[in-house]
């Protein structure tokens, strides 16, 4: 399978993540969409890393290292985001992002 196939899968996954964020009115779905988007970025990093090595380049690890750091930051982001979601639910009694509007008043 060529690089184009991986990039196509990654683009579609990124788009589905955007749809999940835009379409569902629930904070949990926003988190799930963010995870989809980060996964799409990771597929791209690893695919380009693999196909870069074969082209006679240095054969470095850059793409994979980037993917590892993306995974690390995704883990930190998920923990903090869920703590915030729990607090928002505690404050507003709702999981709809549109109802957390204290700063507007």
């Amino acid at each position, binding site marked *: 399978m060529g*690089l*184009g196939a991986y990039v196509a899968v990654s683009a579609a996954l990124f788009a589905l993540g955007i*749809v999940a964020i835009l379409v569902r*009115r629930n904070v*949990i779905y926003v988190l799930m969409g963010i995870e*989809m988007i980060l996964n799409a970025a990771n597929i791209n990093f690893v695919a380009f890393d693999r196909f870069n090595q074969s082209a006679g380049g240095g054969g470095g690890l850059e793409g*994979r*290292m980037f993917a590892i750091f993306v*995974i690390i930051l*995704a883990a930190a982001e998920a923990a903090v985001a869920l703590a915030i979601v729990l607090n928002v639910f505690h404050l507003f009694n709702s999981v709809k992002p549109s109802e957390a509007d204290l700063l507007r008043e």
Partner: protein
Amino acid sequence: MELSDRIFYPLVAVLGLGAIGAGALSAGGPGAAFGLFAWLVLGGSLVCIWERSVVRSAFALLGTFGGTAGLFLLLGSDFLAMSQILIYVGGILALILFGVMLTPPDLTERKLPRVAAGLVAVGAGVAFIAAKVAMTADWVQAAELAEPKSATREIGVAFVAAEEYVVPFELAAVVLTVALVAAVYVARRRTSDLKPEAGAEAEPRA
């Protein structure tokens, strides 16, 4: 089961068979594996967006994360595939399920026209970009690839070598520590939540 579900799920299944078949026809065994993993990734996220129940959506994400790990394996990054399964499936998905359990479901928030409109709009955009890229890019062909080899040892050495990634590695450790402590701090119950408020006996809390 509603009518829309009865149309959607067979459609996803047929798409999966089509993806595996198309991959097998174009590149044999690896192509079929690619089709399977690509279908897991995209079908999982489609079901996640479609499903009314948050718990089912979270479990559909299992397909997305597992399929991504499979794609990493196909790309020859076994270490990344293992860490993907460990961290995403074992950690982040479990965290999301905790979030689901601690917040109430809202079964009425999914509106079918909104889902369809979102899928069509974003799908059209991606198709446009994919067509542009496919027509202009000149990428390496799969036949020119060297055999993938496991780079777990190289990754481990690169993390601690002074010339390479030791500073980002230590920074990541600090970031994780701060983020986890902060998460615990943000999510804690204040003591004022635990103490009954003055006059709370008169009116029970909603």
